[in-house]
């Protein structure tokens, strides 16, 4: 028979509960919190290097076009949605758990400390970080009375031959408040994703907009938002004004924007007016309306061969972003026989000829508005049932009929077949952002609480002071002072020393008085 093999001494196996305990202890340790903080910072970096869908969908699309091989790989790692990605959520959720796991026990301990008396005076005060001793002729009662006067703002417990005093509880309170406020802030942000919505609207002067889903060019509802039940307000753009720096090196820079609005809180409410400016949003029924941008909507009148007006309206043109509001747009004229008309056009608010002889816009304001059109005739494709963008002309089933001369306000272009199009002027338009976020006040409250908590936890110095007074053998009173600070640095020591010096001085003064009275 062979000897049974000796099993190597195994480490004591951890039970599932033991593992859970171990994991919890690791997760809530400061070291883990530090590592998670670094990961949170590191993880935020790609979000600033790569375009983000939450910031600009177009830039992400451009990135896909420019890097067709790399982009899908990056997308697999959610690098175009960093801040809503599972891995980033994993980091901050772990951090929140770690933070709560660390802070809640501390909050409990702090609560017990607040309820308890300041701790019993240690036997040896001379072992404290600060200690001082002196003798006086005053009685211990007098010493305690003076000490109580000097220890204002401390919680004091009387232990017979000594006083125990403690102050600076706000430091730990602030610490707990700060960390829990951060959690509150995160919850508020999450609530926005559930109960908030935002949408973009383009509004031409003299036009109005009712806050319903169909009025929006783009609408982004939160998960729990019923798009049919958003606030029923109504807004009209009466007038828009932009002013620009006229001369000098900064010519063309915008100086101010101002939109005059008329609005109703709900269909039956009275009309009210509001001046909408960049830093001055309209607050209506729990939603905010912001001025995002502006542009030009040239107006056109189209007359058919028989002299009937078949089209007469403003068409918003989109700014190319050249700084001088050169804008592109599309005019679609469906109600004309025998064939429909379509135009692509360029609007130049301040048309001028540049050095190359090209017609350009030289200033953002409308000093010399002109339009150049390219005409098409045929089928616009509006009846095909497929939704069309109003900013794109689908020319597959259309035939080009040539370019117009540059048209000034009032100029007409005679089209082959007898129809005419007249450039009758322009109106301004604004792009508005409507945002509704019921959790905003909570986010603000959390942020304010976080700052206040932070100030307390950084600047309040918790200290314990003990004063012991005993009759010595020679009948004089021996006073001992001990000080213990929970923070580093010399400042608390200075406080303790100040206290000891003052107590000593006051008692000497009363000694002197007693002496004088005796004499």
């Amino acid at each position: 028979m062979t000897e049974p093999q000796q099993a190597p001494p195994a480490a004591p196996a951890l039970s599932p509960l033991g593992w859970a305990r171990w994991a919890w202890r690791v997760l809530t340790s400061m070291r883990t919190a530090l590592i998670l903080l670094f990961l949170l910072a590191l993880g935020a970096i790609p979000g600033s290097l790569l375009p983000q869908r939450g910031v600009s969908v177009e830039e992400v699309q451009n990135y896909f076009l420019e890097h067709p091989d790399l982009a899908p790989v990056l997308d697999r790692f959610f690098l175009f949605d960093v801040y809503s990605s599972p891995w980033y959520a994993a980091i901050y959720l772990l951090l929140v758990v770690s933070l709560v796991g660390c802070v809640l026990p501390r909050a409990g301990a702090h609560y017990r400390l607040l309820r308890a008396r300041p701790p019993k005076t240690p036997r040896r005060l001379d072992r404290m970080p600060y200690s001082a001793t002196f003798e006086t002729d005053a009685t211990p009662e007098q010493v305690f009375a003076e000490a109580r006067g000097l220890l204002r703002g401390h919680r004091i417990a009387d232990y017979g031959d000594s006083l125990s005093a403690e102050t600076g509880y706000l430091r730990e309170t602030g610490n707990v408040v700060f960390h829990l406020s951060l959690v509150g802030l995160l919850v508020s942000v999450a609530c926005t994703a559930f109960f908030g919505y935002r949408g973009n609207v383009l509004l031409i002067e003299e036009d109005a907009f009712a806050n319903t889903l169909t009025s929006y060019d783009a609408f982004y509802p939160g998960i729990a938002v019923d798009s049919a039940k958003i606030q029923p307000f109504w807004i009209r753009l009466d007038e828009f004004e932009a002013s620009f720096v006229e001369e000098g090196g900064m010519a063309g820079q915008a100086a101010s924007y101002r939109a005059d609005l008329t609005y109703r809180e709900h269909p039956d409410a009275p009309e009210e007016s509001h001046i909408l400016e960049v830093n001055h949003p309209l607050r209506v029924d729990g939603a905010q309306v912001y001025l995002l941008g502006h542009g030009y909507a040239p107006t056109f009148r189209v007359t058919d061969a028989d002299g009937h007006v078949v089209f007469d309206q403003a068409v918003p043109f989109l700014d190319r972003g050249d700084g001088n509001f050169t804008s592109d747009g599309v005019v679609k004229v469906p109600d004309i026989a025998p064939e429909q008309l379509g135009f692509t056009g360029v609007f130049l608010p301040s048309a001028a000829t540049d050095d190359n002889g090209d017609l350009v816009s030289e200033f953002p304001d409308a000093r010399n508005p002109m339009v150049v059109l390219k005409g098409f005739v045929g089928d616009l494709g509006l009846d095909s049932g497929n939704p069309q963008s109003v900013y794109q002309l689908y020319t597959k089933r259309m035939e080009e009929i040539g370019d117009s001369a540059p048209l000034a306000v009032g100029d007409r272009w005679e089209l082959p077949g007898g129809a005419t199009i007249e450039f009758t002027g322009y109106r301004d338009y604004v792009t508005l952002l409507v945002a509704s976020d019921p959790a905003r006040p909570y986010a603000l409250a959390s942020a304010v609480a976080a700052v206040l908590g932070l100030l307390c936890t950084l600047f309040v110095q918790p200290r314990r002071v003990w004063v012991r007074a005993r009759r010595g053998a020679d009948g004089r009173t021996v006073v001992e002072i001990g000080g213990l600070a929970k923070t580093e640095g010399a400042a608390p020591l200075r406080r303790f020393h100040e206290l000891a010096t003052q107590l000593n001085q006051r008692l000497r003064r009363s000694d002197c008085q007693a002496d004088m009275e005796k004499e």
Partner: protein
Amino acid sequence: MHVLAAGSAVDPALSNLSDNLVLGMILVYAVALFLFVFEAAYGRRQSLTGTRLVAVGASEAENSDLKVSLREQEPEAKASRHVVGKIGMAMTAVGLLLNLAQIVTRGLAVGRWPWGNMFEFVIAICLCGVAAFLFAAMRYRAHYLGAFVLVPVLLLLGIAVRWLYSESGPVVPALDSYWIAIHVSALILATGAFMVSGSATITYLLARRTEVKQALGQQVSAIAAKLPSAELLDRIAHRMIVLAFPLWTFGVIAGAIWADEAWGRYWGWDPKEVWSFITWIVYAAYLHARATAGWQGPKAAWISLIGFGCLLFNFFGVNYLFSGLHSYA
């Protein structure tokens, strides 16, 4: 309909004066820097008076019967001293006044808060950095930081004049808000204090190396041997961050409130927002590290330097590498 602005209201005389003041303050700071370097190199290494608690002079004599004992002796605080250092302090104070005058005249010349572009930010950050240094010099006797604070200040001013200069003028409508006074001021103040902390941290790492070498009995070159005590520098660096961190927090939150008013959301992961968030996290990590066993000292110092790097990147890198809503700043 469009209404044209009636010319930009810039006062040319004041604007000129303000530009000349920039040159004046660079000159004065440069002289002060020279004096501080002279002090660091040729001064005698002395104990700093007044940093020690129990030597409270007068009251000590009065209370001859008060016996004080401290469990741990206070660390020795030594730094190089020379009489020209005092002149350097005076020159720094003069430079600060010129700096302030420059900002005031520019603000008056354009009739708005004088921080609307990079050039103006840099000048204001230098003001706050120097002010934070003077505060540290008076409160904590940290005069020895002079050379280390004025080097980055002069570098920044040089960059501002050479590359960032922009003529006086109005700002874009988005910046036309009282929030600029709150949000930008808080961040500029915080940046000034972070800058002093960064200088102190670099000096700390150098001084620590010197002390380690000396402890090993190695020879240390003259200037390195005259550095202030490492422990002292570490404390100053920490205090400056304790001052700056809540200011930074407040500034970022004020920015979020402003963004809510101007852009329709309080946080939108704009590159500037991302990097101010990263900076905040790294400095928060520093504060936690200082309270964690095994992370104090040089490790924490490196974290604070990473934080300072993020701060600089946020200021320069983000503006020139990324396009975002903060593109004017």
